[in-house]
């Protein structure tokens, strides 16, 4: 076990590129097995630093594959950008309509907040069917989440009524 640990220390010292500690040198001097391992490890290190030469000549085929990948990547990125703009535009449009509707009726609905909330909730229910499908279809998941939030809010409001 002690010999195993000493060999591990020799190996670690080789990896660190540091000289062996004095205690280890003394151990090597007295133990032939350790001395053999230290000598072999050192020699192996020298020999292994010359890796077998290899010349596969494959630069052109690699670059062809990379260029093909680059060509595939470009059209893949374009729809992502388009999708982002459509989604963002649609969300912004819905937000503007929502705010405008709410503010326009704010004065007349003052004191009738429940009616206002009802109107907004109704609006939210009709929006998915009234809005053009090309606007709504990319947003169906998001809209389902918004709708669920509104429904939850409605439940809370109705439950809080005296």
């Amino acid at each position, binding site marked *: 076990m002690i010999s195993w640990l000493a*060999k*591990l220390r020799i*190996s*670690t010292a*080789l*990896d*660190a590129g540091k000289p062996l500690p004095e205690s280890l040198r003394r151990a090597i001097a007295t133990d032939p097995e350790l001395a*053999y*391992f230290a000598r*072999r*490890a050192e*020699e*192996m*290190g*020298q*020999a*292994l*630093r*010359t*890796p*077998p*030469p*290899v*010349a*596969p000549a*494959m*630069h052109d*085929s*690699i*670059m062809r*594959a*990379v*260029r093909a*990948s*680059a060509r595939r*990547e470009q059209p893949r990125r374009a729809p992502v950008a388009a999708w982002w703009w459509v989604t963002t535009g649609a969300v912004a449009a819905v937000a503007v309509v929502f705010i405008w509707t709410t503010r326009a009726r704010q004065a007349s609905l003052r004191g009738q907040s429940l009616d206002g909330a009802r109107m907004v909730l109704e609006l939210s229910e009709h929006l998915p069917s009234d809005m053009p499908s090309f606007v709504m279809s990319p947003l169906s998941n998001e809209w389902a989440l918004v709708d669920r939030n509104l429904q939850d809010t409605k439940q809370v409001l109705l439950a809080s009524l005296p």
Partner: protein
Amino acid sequence: MAHEFQSLSDESLARHSQAGDLAAFEELVRRYENRIYAFVFQSCGRDADAREVTQDTFVRAFEAIAQFDPRRPFVSWLFAIARRKGIDCFRSRIPGEGEPAPEEIDADDPAELLARREEAQDLWRRARRLLPDGQFQSLWLRYAEDMDIAQIARVLGKTQTHVKVLLFRARHKLAADWQTAPSTMVLTAKGVNL
């Protein structure tokens, strides 16, 4: 343009590649194609598979170049991709089997250099036959690629302590094998075949 890239570091070239410069990436391919091929070939032992894995490695590196952090060494990032790409190939390797590497013979090599090269090849062949993948790859990255322990740990996805133990086991096993078959390779203190 390509000449201009030759003086840049790997990490600078990677930054150019991130900006979409294919010529910069090509310089990286030029620098590493043989080294990646050698690493994969030595690990899996089949020329066709090694070529395929090498090509896949660079394609993957190109696709993922945006994720590369130029503050870290490019070499360990690239070798980590190669190792992942080659895992199936490495696992299918039958110990002791493998084609001889396609070699580049330099007729102008002095005799001593040739002898040393043969000796190294013999030792690498032994290592490939005797060692499991992790130990062999640690040894290759340490000596053939001259990586330090931290870099090897990054490539293999292991801790530095684990890598030290892998290297120790590899040395231990190779030294023991050397002891049992000394007639095929006897080294002097200079590391030259006798």
